[in-house]
């Protein structure tokens, strides 16, 4: 059967990682198309004219954009190794936590990384509040999906890597083992899990990239004041 699956991504995109993991967990063969976001290909613009972003999944010539939408599409199209639970209430909860991750958690952690002084302190407080909710959600579970990695783990999973990179660059502890023991364990377990551990972007390259972003942010904020 001629299944053609292509994933448009960048080497560092956290959102694209979700799709890499999902495809590999389900054992789906696919072709990777790496994009340079400073020079977007005509195909990218054709496949995602609304947002012009990655990741984009193209299945038999038909594009799907927005990583959480893609995850659900993958789960509905390839039934092996299910990512979302069957029960409608648990599905609603999974969607809720994934959205919380994107809307609130990522925003606050990014602020901790990119801001300085009082703004950074406030961002840390907000981050702790957000992470406490995730800590609560982890009670009695190894992964957010339970015994196995699921949709929420894939949605939040990039944090397992990115947080330690931010902590290293900024010299601040975001996930303290004593304050957030369950989340801390989850980050270790997830990062080391089969398939997940083989697909992290190169750490040194990530540090260089994010250090440069931070330097640029500091430079522009000091020059505008």
């Amino acid at each position, binding site marked *: 059967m001629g299944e053609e699956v292509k994933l448009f991504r960048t080497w560092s995109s956290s959102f694209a990682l979700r799709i890499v993991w999902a495809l590999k967990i389900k054992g789906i063969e696919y072709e990777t198309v790496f994009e340079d976001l400073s020079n977007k290909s005509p195909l990218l613009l054709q496949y995602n004219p*609304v947002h012009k972003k990655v990741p984009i999944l193209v*299945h038999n010539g*038909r594009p*799907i*954009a*927005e990583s959480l*939408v*893609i995850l*659900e*599409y993958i789960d*509905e*199209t390839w039934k092996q190794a299910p990512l979302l639970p069957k029960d*409608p*209430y648990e*599905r*609603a909860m999974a*969607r*809720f936590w994934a*959205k*919380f991750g994107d809307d*609130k958690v990522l925003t606050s952690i990014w602020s901790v990384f990119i801001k300085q002084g009082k703004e950074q302190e406030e961002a840390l407080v907000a981050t702790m509040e957000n992470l406490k*909710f995730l800590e609560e959600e982890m009670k009695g579970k190894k992964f957010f999906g339970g015994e196995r990695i699921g949709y929420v783990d894939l949605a939040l999973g990039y944090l397992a890597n990115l947080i330690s990179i931010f902590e290293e660059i900024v010299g601040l502890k975001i996930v303290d083992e004593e304050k957030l023991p369950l989340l801390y364990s989850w980050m270790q377990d997830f990062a080391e899990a089969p398939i997940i551990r083989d697909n992290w972007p190169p750490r040194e390259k990530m540090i260089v990239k994010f250090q440069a972003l931070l330097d640029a942010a500091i430079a522009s904020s000091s020059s505008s004041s």
Partner: protein
Amino acid sequence: MADEIILLDLWASMLGMRVRVALAEKGLKYEYREQDLRNKSPLLLEMNPVHKKIPVLIHNGKPICESLIIVQYIDEVWYNKSPLLPSDPYQRAQARFWADYTDKLYELGRQLWLTKGEEQETAKKGFMECLKLLEGELGDKPYFGGQNFGFLDVALVTFSCWFFAYESFGNFSVEAECPKLVAWSKRCMEKESVSSSLEDPLKIHGFVIMMRKELGVE
């Protein structure tokens, strides 16, 4: 055993209206509880501790939050009446993609009546761009769901009762720029589930006047 369904909501919220439309589409009986967001009830804080916002659906004691997540939940539990999401995974992905996109209208719309001058112009431009893209997605179909009213229709139609307020404060006409979209919204209003769930645009306009006063916008 009868289902117990409670909706925590604010009458003017277009996000809460999405849930009301979905419940009506499925013919479900529920208890509506109006919330005062300036003085949040213990129930709201208990049922949505993360965001402390409406709408919240409480089904047999268990809360579901975030309007589009609630609508999907309703569609999945009561799947044998008026399905909102299509059955084909690709069509479902398109519906979800565009439904998420409609959420942009919420913040842009807010900026339209909250700000003035250049900020407002930027919001207006963004708002109209969104509507035009959505109108393009509708094409010549009667509904976004095709022949049948569906998930994306639910996500967007509730904004239509806010158009008059947006137009008044933003000084523009949705119908002039997106006539097909306005025609679609009128078509939707012919459905009982929609007309009984959306609020009177004049009342919404009054609500915005009150909010602007409260927030000191003049």
